[in-house]
């Protein structure tokens, strides 16, 4: 067994009473003494502080970095304005998803944030494709990553730097916070307004303590992070999306800008483009949807879906599911045939050998609360 990595805030997590668990090669806080349910509700009502330092931060530098990255992702990167960020994903030659990520235009470089479990593969993938084009791929090893999320996030961060108020959803900016030079984006993974903050390792703990000092802020673990993102309808890589799912199947077509679609200025030119562009126009046989179990029993990842209460073949599968504290009941996502993907479609999920009713539901389960 390989040794687990430790995040820069490890000691602070222990001091705060976190229960630490292995996650993507790191020891991470899954919950604090407040517990998953209350942490979740606190984040939606006030503000939550998340340590996401296990995620990969990577700088791409080079004159043609944006154009070069467009050879790996179906997003418009060259058209991304300075000081702006967008959601993106690496596609495979077969048109599946290798990872999803955030890419920010920071003037003389691009800053990417990729999933912890994929970061080594992503870096190798980018080195292969980008270095020959004269673009350097520089993993950022000396910074932690924090997320401050929730309706009071702006007021809290503005207490450390008023400039936080001027940012809108998906803006990125350099900002001094608690004396440290931080890279801040107005984004997150909860469906709430909030910020993601890249901070030098040595300054991470003082910054976290300064944020936690605010009475509105509670530390939030990975458990609540998962239920928050599930209610927000956001995909978790390795669960809702992976190499076997295409962007169109995953209902991520919105993230492929017109410039890269058929007839666009820079149509295609990314791995799997033929499939992805065809699926955008022709549709797919299956699709990721929201699923609302009609009873109280959660339908978790792996639950088989049927279109009738008895008999018949499996038609789909839950890829993420659990209890949604803000919804006050079970919520799930999964893949179903396109013909059964309209909200309101009645399906059944098999839980402990019994088929229980579940309805296709619009995503997100909780309205997004972004400052656009």
């Amino acid at each position, binding site marked *: 067994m390989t040794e687990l990595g430790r995040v820069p805030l490890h000691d602070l997590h222990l001091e705060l009473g976190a229960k630490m668990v292995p996650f993507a090669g790191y020891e991470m806080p899954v919950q604090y003494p407040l*517990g*998953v*349910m209350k942490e979740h509700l606190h984040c939606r009502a006030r503000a939550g502080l998340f340590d996401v330092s296990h995620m990969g931060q990577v700088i791409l530098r080079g004159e043609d970095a944006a154009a070069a990255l467009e050879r790996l992702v179906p997003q418009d990167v060259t058209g991304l304005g300075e000081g702006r960020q967008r959601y993106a994903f690496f596609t495979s030659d077969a048109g599946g998803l290798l990872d999803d990520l955030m890419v920010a235009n920071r003037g003389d470089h691009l800053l990417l944030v990729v999933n912890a479990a994929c970061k080594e593969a992503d870096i190798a993938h980018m080195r292969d494709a980008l270095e020959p084009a004269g673009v350097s791929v520089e993993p950022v090893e000396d910074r932690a990553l924090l997320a401050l999320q929730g309706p009071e996030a702006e007021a809290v961060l503005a207490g450390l730097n008023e400039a936080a108020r001027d940012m809108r959803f998906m803006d990125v900016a350099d900002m001094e916070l608690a004396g440290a030079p931080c890279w801040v984006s107005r984004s997150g993974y909860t469906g709430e307004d909030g910020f993601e903050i890249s901070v030098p390792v040595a300054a991470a703990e003082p910054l976290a303590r300064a944020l936690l000092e605010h009475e509105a802020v509670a530390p939030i673990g990975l*458990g609540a992070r998962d239920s928050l993102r599930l209610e927000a309808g956001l995909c978790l890589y390795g669960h809702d999306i992976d190499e076997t799912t295409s962007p169109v199947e995953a209902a991520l077509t919105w993230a492929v800008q017109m410039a890269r679609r058929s007839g666009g200025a820079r149509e295609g030119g990314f791995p799997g483009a033929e499939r992805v562009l065809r699926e955008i126009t022709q549709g797919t046989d299956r699709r990721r949807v929201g699923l609302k179990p009609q009873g109280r*029993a*959660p339908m978790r990842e792996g639950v088989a879906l049927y279109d009738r209460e008895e008999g018949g073949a499996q038609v789909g599968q839950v890829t993420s599911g659990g*209890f949604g*504290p803000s919804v006050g009941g*079970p919520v799930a996502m999964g893949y179903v045939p396109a013909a059964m993907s309209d909200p309101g479609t009645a399906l059944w999920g098999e839980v*402990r050998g019994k088929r229980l009713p579940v309805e296709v539901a619009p995503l997100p389960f909780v309205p997004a609360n972004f400052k656009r």
Partner: protein
Amino acid sequence: MKYTEEHEWLRVEDDVVVVGITEYAAEQLGDVVFVELPEVGQTVSKDDECVVIESVKAASDILAPIDGEVTEVNEALVEDPGKVNEDPTGDAWFFKLKAADPSQMDELMDEAAYNDFIGD
């Protein structure tokens, strides 16, 4: 009170045995969000899965600690599963059993043995 290695407690009340889970178990489970109870009148054998309990984290089973017949279930838990975290050893009992063989209780741990078992 008697205790099992599955973190259940058993309390004899008149001629029935009341079964619930310990505070330690409730804390390990985290916030309980779903409870499925056995049927009244159902006959269970020791180690039968007779309650499903789901927390925000995962699903788990509660096993029948002894043989017997279910005489009563705590329907209030179905409506308000969070009671399991609030009062696991009081209000949040799961079911009552008429023991088929009361001597099975003798094999279970007492409080001191259970506290040793959980390393308290």
